């Protein structure tokens, strides 16, 4: 019991570990896989990402001839980015990926400037 009291007293003198989230954004590392982006202009529609995706989130649109992603299905595994021969898929560090409506997940995000990792 004494050890617990000592531990609590010690922690009373420390600053809070948590942060006020919506006001203050927490930092993530540069390698963090957040939102998935595709640079659709450079896509060569080889379909490798479509065959490899475990959830069927990414498919090559037959009319537009480039890959499109449904972000509500994507599990952020990063396999598509590995297999893409021209490396046009990348993940930004943005972790606020929830949308208000399901159809918003289908909206394609602009993906031109991948961060150098």
């Amino acid at each position, binding site marked *: *019991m*004494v*050890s*617990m009291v000592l*531990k*609590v007293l010690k*922690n009373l003198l420390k600053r809070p*570990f948590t942060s006020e989230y919506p006001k203050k954004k927490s930092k*993530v*590392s540069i*390698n*963090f*896989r957040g939102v998935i982006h595709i640079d659709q202009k450079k896509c060569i529609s080889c379909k490798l990402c479509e*065959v*490899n*995706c*475990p959830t069927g989130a990414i498919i090559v649109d037959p009319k537009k001839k480039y890959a499109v992603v449904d972000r509500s299905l994507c*599990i*952020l*595994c*990063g*396999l598509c980015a*590995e*297999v893409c021969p021209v490396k046009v898929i990348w*993940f930004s560090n943005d972790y606020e990926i929830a949308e208000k409506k399901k159809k918003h997940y289908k909206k394609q995000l602009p993906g031109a400037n991948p961060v150098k990792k």
Partner: protein
Amino acid sequence: MHEKIFPIGPQHPSLKEPIFLKLHVDGSYITKAEFNLGYTHRGVEKCAEGYLLDTALHAVQRTCGICSQCHSMAFLNAVEPMTGVQVPEKVYLQRLITAELERIHSHLLWGGVMAHEIGLETLFMYYWREREHILDIFDELTGNRVHHSPDLIGTAKRSFNKENLQMVLEKLDLVEPEIKELRNVMENHDVITSRFKKHGNIPKKMAEDLDLVGPTARASGVNYDVRQNAPYMAYGIKELKVKPVIRSEGDSWGRTMIRCDEIFESMRLVRKACEMIDPNEEVPKKKNLIAKGDFSRGRTEAPRGENFHFVAIENNRIKRLKLRTPTLANVISYARIMEGEDITDVPVIVMSLDPCISCMERVAVIRNGKQENWTSHELFEGKKYD
């Protein structure tokens, strides 16, 4: 007094995951315990059928959020020898670092939940604060805090560089004294000792008969750890030999202390691996590999015990996948260890096995078209242990 039936679950405040416990009580003493599974079947095995190997690897990692790297390693243990790929030592060491950090994170998470279960909310917060540092390491090393997915068959997605390894060592130095203090609190807290000692006994004979695995078996004196008995990947290297922690108590207390101690053994392994790794070496590029042979199996030691994968392959795609997660091996002891206990000790006993119900849900007992409960009588065939 006559017997009453006291149901707990499938949804209950003291259970984090759905499992149904049907307790026959006399007053507040449990005379007989039954349990039932089958509330969260997710079908990873069926889902992976027909997948390409790399795709299946990313699917099986999703079996468990806490030990996803161990599932990935078990799958790779099965598939990599079939493809005949030469895996560099750096990749093995990277996998070991992730897996051992995962063990630390899992045991810290469990320590917190255990404290929460007996009403020590402050201790719960302390445990989870330390866990947060480990999650930061995952974020830096692999790109995801929970489902890390750092592996590809024969290689890894990224190579750990000098700053990464530096960060791992710094964070470990930061959390180690804190975890030591938390262990000290656990060991000397009167509430914890009085509620854990001599409750939920699993004698060594019973652990052996039921093939219990992981810390649960080691707390009953069974010397079995896959990392030691069948070393895989980097665990085969002489400097990284595992010295498993063995205790003889076999009660909730033993299972608690063993997990507190395993954290330090994992820290030793991570530090050693960080020393051995060459930060400048690059990992090889992803290759397209062809798997030869029909089937294979892989085992790893996950934080909760032995993890088993059976993989059958046809035309370079998965034909059949079978997983057995450690909790399924351990959970069958519930039917026996609750007998004779007070009903207030049930949450502690349930949590002391560190159950991970959702990743184990693959078995149901069905007789004459009706689902039945798992009972002590059937599981133990009337055997007696003391």
